[in-house]
């Protein structure tokens, strides 16, 4: 879901950054109040935790794996404000130190992943827990009722998908707003009717499931083990100590305790199976957009077929040969001779790089 640079216009990035600044300010204020002097270490730790959470691969039913963000479970454990700040720092590290997600798009990513996701997920969780609270009193052996897990799983799913929706909208408005005089998109070329379903497919299925599993798994473990910490003037889990004060004291074998886990996990997998099975329904719920897209896309392909065929080869040529003269749609202030000199230099440099890369690979392969 991390938006790279060059897919959003610079102005979109600026607007989203401006939108997320007040959220940061609010979060800093709230966290400073809630986490008095310990805030430094607590925030640093939480940010590191959220960064690492994003590195984990989540096992999914059927043997595949997916990534989770962890934004919602953090919000439930730490409060949405602390989660917002932690995820923001984690995103900064990813962008700057790992090139994952753009630098200019940092504000946009923070808006989606550090603002929309934890806040919406958190309030969805609160709402759902109230909603389920009356329905079920069955506890799952760790002081947290089964309905809490259901609420968390759904809230995570909702939070992730809202963030994905926001991302899709940001992609989708680019071709609407930013095109050159030939109608060519300057940034992301996909309109909403393509961007929305493209994001929805992955996030309503694999990533949504990964997020829900991750949230529930982490929460289950911490809830089981946390009471002892909650008593110990916990820095990191103020919310949880509220949630599970009457939980039974930590037993010796707590992390591995066999409190009927199979039935609980069975239920969660069932829930996930339902969610996955319901995915086509979710796509249909996008309603007309999804239905139309299929037909229109095909029509368009046929419509522009001749043109596209005529166009592709030249575009490929420009795309793959660095030495190609400046594409005709991008006017330039360079004289022709300079363009050719540039091409020559680029060609030489590129072949040196390729040669070096190739020999680096050869060295790796050959037995020493």
């Amino acid at each position, binding site marked *: 879901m991390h938006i790279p640079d060059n897919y959003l216009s610079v102005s979109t990035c600026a607007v989203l950054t401006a939108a997320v600044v007040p959220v940061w300010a609010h979060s800093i204020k709230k966290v400073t109040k809630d986490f008095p002097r310990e805030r430094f270490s607590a925030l640093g730790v939480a940010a590191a935790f959220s960064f690492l959470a994003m590195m984990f691969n989540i096992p999914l039913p059927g043997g595949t794996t997916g990534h989770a963000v962890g934004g919602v479970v953090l919000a439930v454990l730490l409060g949405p404000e602390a989660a917002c700040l932690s995820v923001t720092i984690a995103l900064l590290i990813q962008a700057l130190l790992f090139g994952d997600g753009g630098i200019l798009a940092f504000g946009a990513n923070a808006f989606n992943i550090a603002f929309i996701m934890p806040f919406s997920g958190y309030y969805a969780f609160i709402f759902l827990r109230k909603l389920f609270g009356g329905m079920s009193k069955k506890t799952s052996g760790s002081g947290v009722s089964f309905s809490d897990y259901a609420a968390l799983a759904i809230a995570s799913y909702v939070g992730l998908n809202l963030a994905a929706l926001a991302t899709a909208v940001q992609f989708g408005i680019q071709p609407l707003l930013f095109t050159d005089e030939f109608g060519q998109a300057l940034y992301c070329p996909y309109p909403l009717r393509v961007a929305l379903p493209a994001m929805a497919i992955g996030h309503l299925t694999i990533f949504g499931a990964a997020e829900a599993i991750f949230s529930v798994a982490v929460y289950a473990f911490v809830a089981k083990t946390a009471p002892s910490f909650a008593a110990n003037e916990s820095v990191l889990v103020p919310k949880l100590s509220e949630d599970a004060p009457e939980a039974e004291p930590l037993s010796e074998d707590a992390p591995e305790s066999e409190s009927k886990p199979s039935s609980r996990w069975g239920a969660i997998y069932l829930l996930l199976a339902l969610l996955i099975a319901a995915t086509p329904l979710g796509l249909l719920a996008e309603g007309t957009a999804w239905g139309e897209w299929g037909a229109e896309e095909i029509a368009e392909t046929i419509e522009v077929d001749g043109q596209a065929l005529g166009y592709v080869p030249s575009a490929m040529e*420009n795309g793959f040969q660095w030495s190609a003269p400046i594409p005709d749609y991008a006017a330039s202030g360079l004289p022709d001779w300079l363009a050719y000199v540039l091409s020559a230099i680029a060609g030489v440099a590129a072949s040196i790089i390729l040669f070096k890369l190739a020999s680096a690979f050869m060295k790796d392969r050959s037995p020493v």
Partner: protein
Amino acid sequence: MQVPQWLLQEERITPPKDRDAFIRKSAAALTYVLTKARRIDERQRSRIAFSTQIKLALTLLFVLLVAASRNFAFVEIVGVALLVLLATYEQEKLARVLILPIQALIISLIILAPSLLLGQTRAFVVVPCKTFLTTTAISLLAYSTSWNRFTCAFKSFGAPDSALFIFDLTLKYVVVLGEICLETLEAVRLRSVGRNRRKAQTLGGIVGVAFLRAQKSAQEQFDAMTCRCFSGKYRRFKAPMRKIDLLGVALCLGLLSLFIYLEIAIRCSN
């Protein structure tokens, strides 16, 4: 001490097949992070390295201008310059720097391929090119800079000290908790010789342990800070500037003027 008989005999059990890709993949991701964390700053090894604040400024400016430029000539010129710079690198460094941008290039080509059907040829060429250049710049920055130097650079851009402190702490805990997670993952992998039917629970355990260790660690560290008279202030030493940094400033200015010249050129030609 009585050693049970079965312990003295050779075991003859063929373990059932299991898909534990999540452990392998997670461990690989963590190892990748930790290797990067231990990188030593280039400035300690090389005399011709810019100081981090200059590198950061140059990279940010580069990314901003490349993303903002409407004149493809700008992308071509800086692209060629970057290629020439890359060509001077030794093999190993080159391979490490280029892994990320090449992945980014391939992914964006795949993402954008269908846009050709929409007739969006410009995006298909421009966006991957720009993406390759900006990720190369960031990758270069990340490769040549050790993590803690970034904080120094933020400082010279006027970031508040408390924010720097949190950033430093985060980096520290990424390493500390990352090591814990990796150890736990390895332990789980070494012991999972059979079929693990409760993978999600295993994962919850690993991440949960890290969470609780983190929370304990935060408390302990606050104690350590108290013991060293912490009164709410945090300061960092500034990285000393070198003469070569002037060249960096000149590069920034050059990049900016080229950008302005070419943008005016394209406006005039329309």
